[in-house]
């Protein structure tokens, strides 16, 4: 970043150059699919991270009346079921329901009995989640008939609820937070380790390179699941563990890519020129090697993020990932698959978000590759 500040602080008289980055940005902005994907990705991120602040339901809030209700844009309870619910409630109080009218968020009902009705009987009407604040508006027929008015407790479940009666929408938001966070953080971890390791190994070369790369190959040969299960057995299930497990595996690819790039960069004359100028190895790696590997690395990162999200989903699917009531897209999809026929929305909605995000990331990766490496077209 010191380069950036230096450019900015220079006298205004000097002509500003167009860096390779600026050109790549220009090409990227012109790529409609990539730009649209970027917008989609930002929307998904805003939805996931901002949504939990404004949405009234919490991701672990349970609604016992609405277990596994299908998605609907009308508020629950639905009007045609209300009558039945009121009927049940009235019968509990050993009364008769004569008429029932629901209008928006209020209802009116006429209730009668053979004997005069005790006004306290209305508390039976408030028992179900659906109704609230009932009051008697008029008493007729010597108290044998009453007219009651009350509020309907409307709850919106636009994508339905799960089989524990939790609203699916905030769960998708929280799942998105976890998946996106894991995706980017684990990628970042593997980026830092992989780039440094690969650049050092490739630049120093010779025996050091040999030993460092053989170490990478040994790690490669460890079965990933075995590694994760071991970690879980020793340390228990923990959110951080997912970063560690995924990051520890994914940096290997990164190290290999960066090493390959470094090997070819090392032969470039500008690296030799830096050497002839007396720069130390570390200065050369930092100033000349790493900045020039960034192109392929950025492209790999955009492939890695969806890959990591998939991996996390896979771990969650197997039950090795995040723990209830916390969730991730992978865990939600895993839950959804168990009741695919009966409650398909539990699978469909998380899967839609997941797929859209992966698509967007892949298109962005594609756009970045074209932008950074225009010769390939």
């Amino acid at each position, binding site marked *: 970043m010191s*380069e950036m500040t*230096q*450019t900015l*602080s*220079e*006298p205004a*008289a*000097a*002509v*500003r*150059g*167009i*860096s*390779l*980055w600026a*050109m790549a940005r*220009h*090409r990227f902005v*012109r790529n409609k699919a990539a730009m649209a994907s970027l917008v989609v990705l930002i929307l998904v991120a805003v939805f996931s991270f901002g949504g939990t602040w404004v949405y009234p339901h919490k991701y672990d809030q349970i609604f016992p009346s609405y277990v596994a209700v299908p998605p609907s844009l009308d508020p629950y309870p639905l009007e045609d079921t209300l009558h039945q619910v009121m009927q049940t409630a009235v019968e509990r109080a050993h009364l008769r329901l004569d008429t029932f009218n629901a209008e928006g968020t209020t209802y009116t009902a006429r209730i009668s009995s053979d004997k005069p009705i005790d006004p306290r009987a209305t508390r039976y009407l408030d028992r179900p989640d659906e109704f609230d604040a009932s009051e008697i508006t008029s008493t007729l027929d010597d108290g044998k008939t009453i007219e009651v008015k009350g509020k309907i407790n409307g709850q919106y479940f636009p994508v339905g609820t799960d089989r524990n009666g939790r609203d699916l929408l905030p769960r998708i938001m929280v799942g998105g937070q976890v998946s996106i966070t894991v995706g980017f953080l684990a990628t970042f971890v593997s980026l830092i380790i992989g780039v440094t390791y690969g650049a050092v190994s490739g630049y120093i070369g010779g025996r050091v390179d*040999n030993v460092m790369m*053989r170490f990478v190959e040994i790690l490669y040969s460890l079965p990933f699941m075995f590694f994760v299960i071991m970690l879980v057995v020793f340390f228990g299930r923990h959110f951080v563990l997912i970063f560690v497990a995924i990051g520890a595996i994914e940096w290997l690819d990164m190290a290999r890519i960066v090493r390959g790039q470094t090997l070819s960069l090392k032969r*470039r*004359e*500008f690296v*030799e*020129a*830096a*050497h*002839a*100028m*007396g*720069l*130390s190895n570390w*200065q050369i790696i930092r*100033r*000349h090697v790493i*900045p*020039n590997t*960034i192109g392929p690395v950025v492209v790999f990162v955009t492939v890695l993020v969806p890959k990591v999200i998939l991996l996390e989903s896979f771990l969650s699917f197997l039950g090795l990932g995040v723990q209830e009531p916390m969730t991730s897209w992978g865990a939600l999809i895993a839950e959804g698959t168990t009741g695919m026929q009966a409650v398909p929305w539990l699978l469909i909605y998380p899967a839609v978000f997941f797929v859209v995000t992966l698509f967007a990331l892949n298109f962005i990766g594609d756009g970045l590759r074209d932008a950074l490496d225009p010769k390939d*077209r």
Partner: protein
Amino acid sequence: MADTLLDIRGLNVRFSTPTGDVHAVKGIDLQVNKGETLAIVGESGSGKSQTMMAIMGLLAANGRAEGSAKFQGQEMIGLPIGKLNRIRGAKITMIFQEPMTSLDPLYKIGKQLAEPMRRHRGLSAKAARARAIDLLKLVKIPDPERRVDSYPYEMSGGQRQRVMIAMALANDPELLIADEPTTALDVTIQAQILELLVELKQRIGLAIVFISHDLGIVRRFADRVAVMRTGEVVETGTVADIFANPQHPYTKMLLAAEPTGRKAPPADNAPILLEGRDVDVRFSMGGGFMGGKKLDIHAVDHVDIRLKEGQTIGIVGESGSGKSTLGRALLRLNHGTGAIRFGTDDISEASRQEMRRHRRQMQLVFQDPFGSLSPRMTAGQIVTEGLLVHEPQLSKSDRDVRAIKAFLEVGLDPATRNRYPHEFSGGQRQRIAIARAIILKPQVVVLDEPTSALDRSVQKQIVELLRDLQAKHDLSYLFISHDLAVVRALSDYIIVMKSGKIVEEGSTDQIFDAPRESYTRELMAAAFGK
């Protein structure tokens, strides 16, 4: 005209780029007659290659060609691929500059030659092989029966270029387009390839379009010349006319672009600045973690060299002669053995840290002005990078002041110092590389083919710049080049190298006017056409 083979009229080539259209070829007219050699000369970016690419339908995806180009009356521009393929590769063929990359490394030569013949003419495997051997004979590859089964890596650059020519001749073409076919080759090989082309032209009546920036070759080789500049043909005429009586000022400038002048040797009592005794460099290839056979290359074979203050030693030789390796060995940039002294210090065993002290006195300028500048740094950052190491006390604004001075010194506009290397031309980039070397105020600069990748007119400017800087800063140069004309203009002492050994050395006059060794004479003959 009955004998016009290729008739180009009003040809335009445009490339659409993010910053607008680039008009590469601006409505040119050109004719090629049967059996003649037309040379198209011009500097890089003059559109000479793009003209031919447009005719062959080989423009890059963002390129568009308009106008007319008739081959034997057949319009080539806008011809559908299927019809175009019946002409290109059969009647018009092309050879390119880079023989190293234009052959597929995975297939044997014979197979690469035979494949198109079997495809286009339906020859049997046996007949195609026989024809391949004939073709190899035609391009004078020794022992063609055996070589037909070699892989490209087993052949030298010159031989590969011969194979490429054989490939181009496979379908008895009438027009051969040769796009700088000898630029990547050593001078002696270059001469042989040109001889071959001349002979082929006479034997099979081939018309040749010869694209080149090298006027020396064109003069010896072509019948007619078209001079191109920024997409326009500025002058056409016979070789004799163009060279004897150029009309257009640009042609005159090109003809006068050969670097001239000679350098006076330093005083006899000038102290020795850099001395290498018994310098020896070997590279071993292969041999890995698990062992394996090693291949030793003896790049520099026990060479002695002495560079005096203010002297310029020219090291000449063909590729693989070890001249660059010697230059790097003297700067301790590779693992050579032998005694190397810089001034009064013995630096043959100096560690990296100890060398750092000397680095600023000993600078290096590279051949490829595109490869030697880091693409992600601004020109100003590149030039001042050495100051970070050697004068770390300087503040950012001090460094900026120094960068401005260095830019002015090498004739660049300091306002451009925040630009990135890709925004400069080849010559400007080489100036940046020189600025990077001299900003540290060195005593010795090793110039490794600093002008080879540049156009002649730019070469001349760089040679003059180097000369000025030497006079101003008392620099000593070690000038490594295969280009004898440039070496003659800059050096006062010359070392001729071949396969790691010094063949001949002496003052410039001595070497150029009275070469003793046959190898030196051969180089001279190839370079100056004597």
